[in-house]
């Protein structure tokens, strides 16, 4: 207790009274992110700058308590949930865009900057920030770095790690260092790369220097409508197989379309088994040619209809439906649970048949909306947590899907991260030796295991025990 009191007062001294939360009616809000796992933090600290982050880290070290970094709390794997208590460090106040440099096409950002705000700030220079998770209107750059986030447009442009040139980080002893830098390929080990995707387990990212890209001359969006899922997945295989890399190649199935169109009419055909949303970008001539090719392929594989968005408004309507698809699931069922498996693109047709079979076998409705071009599945299992036993079946079904993905040569997560949720599934992919090697890397940065403990690495505690479920918690999982 004595330690706690001195930790609180030390934090208050560094951050000010207002930005150190300890009352239950304050900290309870930070017990969850976008996942269904919740654990109450003891303290929430909201530093205003890097120096204050360092002060928090030093105070936590002295008090010997865990540190859990949090951006906007939109993560889907429980990465921001303080599994072992301690201090949650919210980077939300550090939301300044420090510089947009159009000549070098970079932006210097604080960790709490909202993803979409980067593109808004760069737009007047004809530039944009490419990684665009569906949560981009809310999620933070720091969170994107921690989870190496993707998005619909990362098919063509790559994920976060391809766009981060350098990061400023606070290490476990409170030291502030820059890793990477303004020029690509700095010599020595790629320590910046260690931080990207580390899920907050090696230190706290406080700033990021990111790459900006030139806005393309032309963009065209197609919607291909299919009466059979097989034909839709086969089209994806054909499109990428012919060397066409669209900026985005997304799939939505019948159940997802139903959810999306319940909100507002956005132009998705109700009743179709699947649609592909294909976006091509580039110089005008390339776009025209790519549109013609994609249309031809889809028609050959059996699309009922292929239409091209006629104007920006129609394009935006289609994308609105896609980006809000996960949130819309709340309209179909009180809870849903999304998985994030990956398979090689060529295996898409068989994995989707497998997902359908799992849906039937477990008697659970599954809505599919995902980055088909990347082979990155997002099956949303719809359920009601209040029905006894249903949650267990959901967990079993989702485990079956992940196993099928791994068996097909894929992975257990494409972009949501491992977090708390999948830390035990990680053994499907890695041997004990692999995990030991990773643990050594982590230990080099975080010898006490203070940064975001109980994440990524498997532990004997199962997720079911972590899920402190009061009668009604709406599950919230989406990309």
């Amino acid at each position, binding site marked *: 207790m004595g330690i706690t009191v001195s930790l609180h007062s030390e934090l208050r001294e560094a951050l000010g009274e207002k930005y150190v*939360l300890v*009352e*239950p*009616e*304050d900290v*309870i*809000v*930070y*017990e*969850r*992110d*976008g996942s269904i796992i919740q654990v109450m933090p003891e303290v929430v600290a*909201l530093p205003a700058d890097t120096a204050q982050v360092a002060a928090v880290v030093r105070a936590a070290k002295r008090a010997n308590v865990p540190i859990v970094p949090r951006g*906007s*709390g*939109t993560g889907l794997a429980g990465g921001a949930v303080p599994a072992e208590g301690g201090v949650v460090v*919210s980077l*939300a*106040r550090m*939301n300044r865009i420090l510089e947009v440099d159009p000549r070098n096409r970079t932006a210097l950002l604080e960790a*709490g900057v*909202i993803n*979409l705000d980067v593109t808004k700030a760069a737009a007047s220079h004809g530039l944009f920030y490419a990684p665009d998770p569906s*949560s981009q*209107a*809310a*999620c933070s750059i720091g969170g994107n770095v921690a989870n190496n986030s993707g998005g619909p447009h990362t098919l063509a442009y790559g994920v976060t790690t391809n766009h981060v040139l350098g990061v400023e980080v606070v290490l476990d002893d409170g030291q502030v260092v820059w890793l990477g830098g303004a020029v690509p390929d700095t010599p020595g080990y790629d320590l910046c790369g260690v931080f990207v995707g580390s899920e907050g387990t090696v230190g706290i990212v406080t700033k990021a220097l990111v790459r900006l890209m030139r806005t393309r001359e032309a963009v065209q969006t197609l919607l291909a409508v299919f009466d059979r899922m097989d034909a839709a997945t086969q089209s994806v295989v054909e499109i990428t197989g012919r060397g066409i890399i669209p900026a985005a190649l997304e799939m939505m199935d019948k159940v997802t379309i139903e959810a999306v169109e319940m*909100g507002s009419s956005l132009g998705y055909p109700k009743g179709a088994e699947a649609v592909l949303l294909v976006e091509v970008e580039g110089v005008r001539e390339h776009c025209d040619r790519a549109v013609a090719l994609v249309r031809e392929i889809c028609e050959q594989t059996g699309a009922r209809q292929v239409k091209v968005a006629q104007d920006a408004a129609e394009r935006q309507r289609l994308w609105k439906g896609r980006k*809000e*698809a*996960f*949130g*819309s*699931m*709340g*309209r179909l069922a*009180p809870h*849903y649970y999304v998985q994030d498996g990956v398979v090689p693109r060529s295996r898409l047709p068989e994995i989707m048949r497998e997902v359908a079979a799992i849906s039937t076998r477990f008697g659970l409705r599954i809505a599919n909306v995902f980055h088909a071009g990347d082979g990155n599945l997002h099956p949303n299992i719809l359920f009601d947590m209040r029905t006894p036993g249903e949650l267990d079946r959901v967990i079993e079904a989702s485990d079956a899907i992940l196993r099928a993905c791994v068996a097909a040569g894929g992975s257990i997560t494409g972009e949501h991260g491992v977090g708390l949720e999948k830390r035990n599934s990680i053994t499907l992919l890695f041997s004990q030796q692999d995990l030991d090697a990773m643990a050594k890397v982590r230990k080099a940065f975080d010898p006490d295991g203070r940064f975001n403990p109980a994440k990524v690495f498997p532990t004997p505690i199962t997720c079911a025990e972590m899920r402190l479920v*009061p*009668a*009604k*918690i*709406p*599950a*919230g*999982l*989406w990309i």
Partner: protein
Amino acid sequence: MDLTTGTRERGNAGTRQATSVLSIPELDACVHCGLCLNHCPTYRVTSLEPESPRGRIHLVQAASQGRIEPNERFGEHIYLCLMCRACETACPAGVQYGRIAEAAREVLGPPGSPFARAVQMFAFRRLLPSLRRLRWVAVGLRLYQRSGLAVLVRPLLPRRLREMEAMLPQVPDRFFSPKAEVLPAIGPRRARVGVLSGCVMSVLFADVNEATVRVLRRNGCEVVIPNAQGCCGALNVHNGETVAAKAMARRNIDIFLGSGVDAVIVNAAGCGATMKEYGHLLHDDPAYKEKAEQFGRLTKDAAEFLAELGVVPPQGRVDLTVTYQDPCHLAHGQRVRTQPRILLASIPGLRLVEMDGSDRCCGSAGIYNITHPEMSQTVLSEKMRMVDHTGAQAVVAPNPGCMLQLRFGGKKFGPNVPVYHLMDLLDKAYGNAGTGERGNEETI
């Protein structure tokens, strides 16, 4: 019924009762995605999740499960909310945040110190239900403002009261008092409509009400303004008072449904949103539930109604560059966004320059600017910066709260440009037609 009794002390509703009142189905729809965060004015200012829609929903959920007490700290989070409902527009799952926050406020009762709570309860239960009493208070306030008393008293007030005093609007010379209850359409009759006089509108904005009636009549509407109507109860509902609010709703429902109108027209966005939701307010009143829903369907914002009816194009010019502030309870509460812009576009000579974040709250939010002056003015200063960027000569904001707030903002932060109601400008445009007859001087 004595409306002053039953004032609840904070928290004496008891945890058990609180948990049952708070266990509303709307909570289940929130999937915790966080897409609302950046749309919330108080989260944008504070970066604190307890001051965000998702955070507040989580707090209400936790209180409904008995995991936290609906205590004072809880109340501070619930009442720092502006109730702008921008989160409802942002929410992909269609969560009705307003209903969740209203349920929490019902458990808490009005905000502030015991004195502030008593003042509000008096206002909600004694003044607002009676337009006559409200006018006497307004007369008193007018006397205070005009007699020089205000100048004497102001320096003596403590800082907080002085800030609140500064927010008080100037009471104009006359109140809204139409000559007849039914006014004929000008030209062929296209509809018979009721008009809500409103509490604030009829006391502080008689000119806007008159303009609204003239515009409706010029659009072929026979206008019914029942004398016996009253305040809609929106301020009550937003501040946790539902007893008087329900009585006020029933009165308006009876009066307007009995007057045989095709629509009930409202020129105050907050009132319109509340009236459209009377069905929810009276959902547990079997005698009124259905009538309330019918009344809700008849309720139309003036701009919404005219755009749907097909506005008669004004012939006169209004040479002015304006920017448009979407009132929260119009854009988010009623999803009315395009209709006011259609009407603005119909005015010859008028040019609309959109501001960044036109549908972001101005910080007025009913009585929020008085209960939370600091947050209100932080939000307002940002709004005025956006207004300034447009270079507009005037702001159009079809809601009394926004108009008062933006006028105050113009004086305090600049640019000090006039603030009009949409109906003002339409009325001017009709009045400026070449006939020489100035419509806006014609009394009603």
